[in-house]
């Protein structure tokens, strides 16, 4: 998985860079973490995946196979982070 994929069917997405603010509250810059897609096995930084923000919450999709990697939804004073499509995250030590 890399950041260069073309997705001509829709322009209605950003990329994982824009997730940095929302994830910053968990750990410093999680968007640089290497994410392996549970669907197709490709790996790349979360920043290079495709971010859909017009869904309820934020949905991050694999740029190789478009499977959903993770979702972050706001539920009032709590937030739910689901990681169904993530096999693993490799996070640099600070």
């Amino acid at each position, binding site marked *: 998985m890399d950041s260069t994929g*073309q997705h001509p069917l829709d*322009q209605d*997405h*950003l*990329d994982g860079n824009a997730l*940095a*603010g929302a994830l*910053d509250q968990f750990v410093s810059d999680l*968007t640089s973490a290497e994410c392996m897609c549970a669907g197709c096995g490709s790996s790349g930084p979360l920043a290079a995946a495709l971010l859909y923000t017009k869904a309820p919450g934020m949905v991050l999709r694999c740029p190789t196979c478009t499977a959903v990697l993770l979702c972050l939804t706001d539920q009032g004073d709590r937030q739910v982070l689901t990681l169904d499509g993530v096999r693993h995250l490799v996070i640099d030590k600070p």
Partner: protein
Amino acid sequence: MRRSWQVAEVSAVRAETARARTLRLRFPDMVAGVPGQHVDLRLTADDGYQAVRSYSVAAWVPPRELELTVEELDDGEVSPFLVDVLAVGDQLEVRGPVGGWFTWTPDRAGPLQLIAGGSGVVPLMAMLRSHSEARSAVPARLLYSVRSPDHVFYRGELDVIGQEDPQVVIDIAYSREAPDGRPVGRLTHEAVTASCFPPEDEPVIYICGSTGFVEAVAAWLVDDGHDADRIRTERYGG
């Protein structure tokens, strides 16, 4: 690292074009970061409705300030307010600076290739400013695609960097209207190839702009034989 929203004050504003404005924000404490990062702004309406938008940092002004440049979009919810309404002394909720992947610092090896579509020039300008301040010996090129000469951000400063820094080449491509003697038209694969370092130079490449622009240019560069691992992208939406 700050983990939550804080209040910053608009300390200066400067028009870049008829529809874009640079905002200088002053933070309560020290603020530092690296070129390529962005902040999130949160606006709250009187009825409690909130909107969050991301804006790249254009310049770092230590110790407590940074600059953003915002372009107004027709029918935009937030950008017309930031460009036309916000005034010096007003306060904004800010989160960040954040982001660690779409970043460049002068210690990164390899020629630096920057490619901007419209307001996508903002984080690339932060990189170019850092390149200049560090007097980096790394060769750098900026390919900047704009609609017309009136849409160019940071015009004077880009001219100075292009003329005075022998390591930097600035190439502006005009899509709708060009100065006399310059070609006009949508950015093509050939034009991108011609303006960029060739794959054998192994440049590190940063592409920023609307989602369609970024994906088209990235695909051309991969076609040309650039290694996808050396290409970093930031999609602004659209």
